[in-house]
């Protein structure tokens, strides 16, 4: 794995991307013992509007805390996909929610499409776990953090009563990743 990995989780406000970033950073920083920085860019709206959560993970001290060239991109809206795919590394990985993102530019063998929101709604009756399923897929595909670490981080950051559903969502994400990989 690269010394420094840059992850961009993008979509709109209310999709839980900032929380997803925090969980990912906590998994890397606290549970995997690496260095991690999470930052975000958001507008004044609490819901809707563009939202972007960035995570930088490294084995060494992190100087510049933001993404320079994205290694892993999650796109949960078409606008976010169009905007941030431009900054994706040549060998970077793109995971897009095919429920919403219908046009994916420059499809490569590292582009993964999956109806994440639809699956969340179908399997759990709520779109709220879209972020956690996405994290599961990303970790399953990239091993950016260990599965154990992300599980612990999810449990420590979601409300107690939502723990079970989020754990299930995460596992579902792992399984989806397996399927996506075999298909390639």
């Amino acid at each position, binding site marked *: 794995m690269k010394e420094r990995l840059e992850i961009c989780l993008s979509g709109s406000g209310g999709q839980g991307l900032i929380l997803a970033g*925090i969980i990912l*950073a906590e998994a890397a920083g606290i549970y995997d013992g690496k*260095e991690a920085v999470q930052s975000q860019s958001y507008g004044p709206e609490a819901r809707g509007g563009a939202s972007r959560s960035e995570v930088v993970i490294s084995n060494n001290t992190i*100087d*510049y*805390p933001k993404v*320079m060239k994205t290694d892993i991109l999650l796109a949960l809206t078409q606008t976010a996909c169009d905007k941030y795919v431009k900054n994706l590394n040549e060998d970077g990985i793109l995971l897009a929610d095919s429920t919403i993102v219908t046009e994916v530019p420059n499809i490569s063998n590292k582009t993964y499409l999956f109806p994440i929101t639809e699956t969340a709604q179908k399997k759990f009756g709520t779109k709220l776990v879209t972020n956690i399923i996405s994290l599961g897929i990303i970790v399953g595909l990239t091993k950016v953090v260990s599965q154990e670490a992300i599980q612990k981080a999810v449990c420590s950051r979601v409300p107690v009563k939502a723990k079970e559903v989020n754990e299930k969502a995460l596992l579902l994400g792992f399984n989806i990743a397996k399927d996506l990989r075999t298909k390639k």
Partner: protein
Amino acid sequence: MNNQKNIKLLQGNEACVEGALLSGVKFFAGYPITPSSEIAEGMAKKLPKIGGKFIQMEDEIASMAAVIGASMAGLKSLTATSGPGMCLKQENLGFAIINEIPCVVVNAQRGGPSTGLPTKPSQGDMMQARWGTHGDHPIIALAPSTVNEILTLTIKAFNFSEKYRTPVILLLDEVIAHMREKVEIPAPEDIEVINRKKPTVPPEEYLPFKPDEDGVPPMANFGEGYRYHITGLVHNYKGLPTSDSQEIDAFIRRLHNKIEKSIKDIIIIERYLLDDAKIALIAYGSVARAAERTVKLAREEGLKVGLLKLLTIWPFCSEEVNKLAQQVDLIIVPEMNLGQMVLEVERASRGKCRVVPYGRVDGELINPIEILGKIREEIKK
């Protein structure tokens, strides 16, 4: 998890709360404003747990006033705000300076002027931190660049404020205020906490503004048997208004001198790969992290670039910059404004080397590549 060290993933604003609590903060007054509100929220939650007090005031002016009042009554006090709020606090900040009342004011910088860019970073308030309140006055301002430094410099800010009896400004920016990073929270016994000097004389002999040798007068808290007067008017040793020009002159000079005298204690800087440098970057806050990356990238290209990172921005480290100017050919000052720190750097360099600003004001953090580009452009000149 690590069983010896207390390591957490904390947001910058949360780290400020932790640092303040470790420093012994017992009072917070504030008013909601982005991007500093998490500090107020953390204080509202945590202060009552330790018997401290939190109050959300009716405005920024009142918050600054309440903080000063609480400090006079003996509690270490904190307030936090951002640009528009910082503007409103200025008059009472001056009151704290002239009455030498310890307190810490956090300004999480966002784009301005006016409402500006509430959710985006800036370094537009550096000169405001120095000169925001009217009149001739000194100030201490600290500027962390990592979440861990927010914690340690919050402790420093409280210590300086108590030691030198002055308000201290902690200048954050939106990037580090909202960023989350690994922080090692020190055990209380591992940190140095400084408390204000108390009078050693009985009340009838106490002169509240008569300085000790270090220029700092011992401070009696209200309600401890020492009755005296505090006024925003220039005052004598007794704290009573004076129009004696000698007393006025001595007073204003002492306010400056107590900081100037201890400049070695107050100025905190970090030198990164400067020993053989021919080009120096001078930066603070989140920009310093971009600059550090730039240094690495430039060194890969064989360019002898180094970084002077400022953790104390006021008083300004003029002596260090002057020495550096004699060593290097070029100083580049990247900052998220159109030229504030660069003025100080130019002043301190005294023409010994070329000083070039690099400003960005679009609400985005300066990135390492653009600073590298600026270096390449400048060495061609």
